[in-house]
């Protein structure tokens, strides 16, 4: 089961396939080819001095690079005929704002709307993601605020952008629950809360659900009077997606870290990959990141699930000079392996990971030669795509008028 973002009107020539798992296309839907796939990649300079995005046609790897440069703190979310660029706290002149672009003019935003709250002008809203619910409704996850925004993503002017807000402050003692990621499943939007204190992961992360029909929180534990979330068995959760079969949610926690007297960080290894059964909300640790004495994969960084239902993980040594590896997860055995994976996915600096609707993996590479690495798990083929900036995140737009592309 998949969870369509929208019922696309006939006139709509584009659809979006979010790598976060709230997209249109999945295992049960018609296959998507590279001809119809356009990757949009958020980029940052190697030294964080600037950022931009790139648009890449998957069919021939044609790249429109370094579009609309600005600050280094941003993310991309595919949406229908284009994509949103979410300007986070240090996003430069578009910080704390969401811009919408079309593929026909990917370097010029159609609109840029602030996520700053007029009632709290000094608050750094730090938007992390936008999740479209319907034609005229989306949720904006505001990492630096207690309040998630309900917005109209199609608003023709900024005055119509904000429609409402949902207070999540009760879920963290310091009032800022750090809403970091979300997906749509079973008629609800599921939002991951990191619940940090001064950026220290001192509490387990949490999952809350919002009824999309009413824009209200759903009580996930009816045994208490309060509206409860679901506490996850991991800390510092960073990503969530809907499994390809639609029966569960998958949440990745990268865990916290301890700092020594010289502020060198040592991972605590209290993260892992968690499966949440949507039928009964039971949680299961699909893959544990180990302990500080025995961490076979290193610190977790990112994960995805490809069209073939395989789960993939990026993990490694987070310290400077360390490297990451791509792992194939075996959930039944609660382990992961690098066996059979190409050398170019091993012991390199991997900044992000995404599974394309066509079935291949896109890895972001940092280091002296930043860029992308396309890896087709079915054939083992790899294709490097050099960029001069470091990929931060990747999402995919599906063009239904692929013949008209370029």
């Amino acid at each position, binding site marked *: 089961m998949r969870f369509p973002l929208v019922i696309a009107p006939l006139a709509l020539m584009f659809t979006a396939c979010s790598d976060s798992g709230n997209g249109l296309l999945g295992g049960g839907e018609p296959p998507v080819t590279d001809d119809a796939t356009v990757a949009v990649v958020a980029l940052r*300079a*190697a*030294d*964080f*001095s*600037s950022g*931009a995005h790139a648009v890449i046609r998957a069919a021939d790897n044609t790249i429109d690079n*370094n579009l609309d*440069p*600005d600050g*280094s*703190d941003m993310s991309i979310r595919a949406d229908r005929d284009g994509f949103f660029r979410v300007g986070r*706290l*240090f996003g*430069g*002149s578009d*910080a*704390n*704002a969401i811009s919408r672009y079309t593929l026909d003019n990917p370097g010029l935003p159609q609109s840029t*709307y*602030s996520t*700053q*709250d*007029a009632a709290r*002008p*000094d608050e*750094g809203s730090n938007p992390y993601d936008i999740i479209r619910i319907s034609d005229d409704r989306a949720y904006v996850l505001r990492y630096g605020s207690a309040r998630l925004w309900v917005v109209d993503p199609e608003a023709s*002017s*900024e*005055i119509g*952008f*904000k429609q409402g807000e949902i207070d999540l402050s009760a879920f963290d003692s310091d009032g800022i629950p750090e809403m970091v990621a979300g997906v749509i499943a079973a008629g609800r939007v599921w939002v991951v809360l990191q619940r940090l204190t*001064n*950026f220290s992961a001192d509490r387990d992360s949490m999952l809350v659900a919002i009824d999309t029909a009413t824009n209200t929180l759903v009580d996930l534990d009816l045994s208490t009077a309060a509206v409860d979330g679901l506490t996850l068995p991991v800390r510092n959760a960073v990503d969530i997606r809907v499994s390809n079969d639609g029966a569960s949610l998958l949440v990745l926690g990268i865990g916290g870290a301890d*700092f*020594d*007297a*010289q*502020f*060198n*960080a040592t991972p605590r290894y209290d993260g892992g990959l968690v499966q949440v059964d949507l039928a009964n909300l039971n949680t299961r640790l699909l893959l544990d990141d180990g302990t500080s004495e025995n961490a076979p994969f290193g610190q977790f*960084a990112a994960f995805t699930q490809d069209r073939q239902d395989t789960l993939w993980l990026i993990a490694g040594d*987070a*310290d*400077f*000079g*360390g490297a*990451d590896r791509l792992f194939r997860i075996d959930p039944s055995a609660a382990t992961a392996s690098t066996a059979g994976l190409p050398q170019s996915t091993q012991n390199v*600096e991997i*900044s992000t990971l995404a599974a394309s609707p066509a079935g291949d993996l896109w890895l*972001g*590479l*940092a*280091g*002296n*030669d*930043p860029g992308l690495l396309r890896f087709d798990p079915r054939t083992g083929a790899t294709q490097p795509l050099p960029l*001069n*900036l*470091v990929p931060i995140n990747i999402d995919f737009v599906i063009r239904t008028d692929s013949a008209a592309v370029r």
Partner: protein
Amino acid sequence: MRLFWCRAMRTACCVVFGATVAPMVMGYSPTSAVPAPMNPAPPAPSPDAAADDGRDPPVMLDPMVHESRAPSQWPVTPAIDITQSLRALPGLHLRPSGGLGSYTEGRLRGGSARQMQAQLNGVPLRRAGEEALNLALLPSLALGAAHLDTASSHGLVGDLHLRVAPIARNLQLGIGDFGARHLGAQTRWGHGLVAAQYRSADNDFPLRNPLKPFDPADPERRQTEPRQNADTRHASLLYSAPGWLALAVDNREAIPNARNSTNNRAKLSTQLLQIATPAPGLDGSQWQWSWTEERYTDRTGQLALEPADLRQRTISAGWDSADWHPVQRWSIDWSQFRATDAARPEVAQQVQRWRLSGQLQTPDVASATPTTATAGQWSGLIGALVLGEDVHAPGNGASHVSWELLPRAHLQYTTTLAVVQTRTQLSYRERAPTLFEKFGDRGLFRGNPQLRPERALALDLDLGRINALPLLRLYHRELRDAITPQYNARGLGRSTNAGRARITGISLEQTLALADPWTLHLRGDWLEARDRSDGPSRNRRLPGHPEWIVGTQLRWTHPRLQLRYAWHWEAGAFYDSPNLLRAPIVRQHDLHAVIPLAGGLRLTLAALNLSDNRHARFNGFPEPGRQFRADLLLSFTP
């Protein structure tokens, strides 16, 4: 200071890392001065000029205050704003981060601020391995002259030599837009000068804030709002006499954020005490002591995400041979650096350093005006710095001692071709890593204790008329092992020796006497500074360095009135290492009028940035637009 500033800007304005740690090279920049024919009556040297090298005729800080025409009628009018004073120096690029008194760094010939060392009357205000100097700490009203030295310099690129003004008795006060206030007094005391100065500014200049929340009454965010949390305050006391220097500074600066938040309370305070006294036995040598206390507070984490209350203390004591001997110079000093974090009391960093420096040189190596040498003349310098470091590990009290040897050499050949005098120079110099570069900052940016010094090789060619200061200076620098920040895939940063840079430039300076009473001063710089590292920014321009800097100052002098129009233009700079964000062009038009009144009283009116040009040399840290200032100076008979 740099540590705090880098920390504050780490996420808000990461270009600072790229810019300040950006590779640069050393070079030789002989004294910048008005050419002799245009300057028949150079200003009388300060009685304490002997504390400086005494060989270079200095450029006065501002042609406006230049006493070349009629010193008796036009007493010096020092500028309250250090950027106004120093911008006539070719090869020097000044980067203020906001309004009056805001953090300001100086960068010489495409170098980083760390690669230039500043000295006041020959006393170093920062030493090898220390952070760059915030020029806003300087007692601007008491400064009289400045020049650049890249021959006998200690900085990798060069030294900025500042000199205290000649002895005068005066009282000066002024006001200006955006809460600018200043009060200064100078008088003779014994054989020296005592100067006190107070300066403050709200810096609440209007700006458009594109990051503010949506306002139906201003949907395009065209309305301006005052800059928030940008006030500065400075108080200083200076004593200067032959062989003596005592400087006490209390400098406080609020640091705004990009959102212009009203609840931002980030502040940086610096207290500095610098003392130099003659050392008996070796005439011309000095004992030197310094104490610097810096505190950076950001209790609500407005600038760098998490709250901070960091304190640093540096004390040092040493001996410098200074002008004891014309062909050799020695210095030895000890310093202790201690950093604590009130938010994490278990963390404390303590480093002791010893420095022994010596150099042998020919007497004329740093002369700004080469001796006429038709047959050619060789001169040069060779020296080395031995730097010892004892790092105390917090917690277990263990210490680690290391030693570094940093050689330097300079060779030059002077000859005359027809009426053109040429000076060709070859230099090699090294810079020791700073503590921030070696030990980082609270996990956001990790230092690298294994860092090596960065190295630079420079080739310079000066061209000018015989017995005059060079008109044209061409330079080329190659930098190796440049200390450069690198970030891994998860954003963790570390200093490395991976940087390389290639820098070529031309500096031009000329003063022309037009039809009396008009005078035109011209300063121009062209700079080609490229990253040559093996990385994604290879061949990109080094961020923060304008390709072009042009400044002209047109002066009209009359016994009853002096007018000056100044135009300053900077173009071709990028904020970022990939060169995607081009910095706005700086176009600044200033107009000054000096009106002598009765009884030694003089009024100066200034209209600055007349065209209201909005620019920011640091990305996200705009500088003020149009502003007006008035200054009254009452002079007494010395």
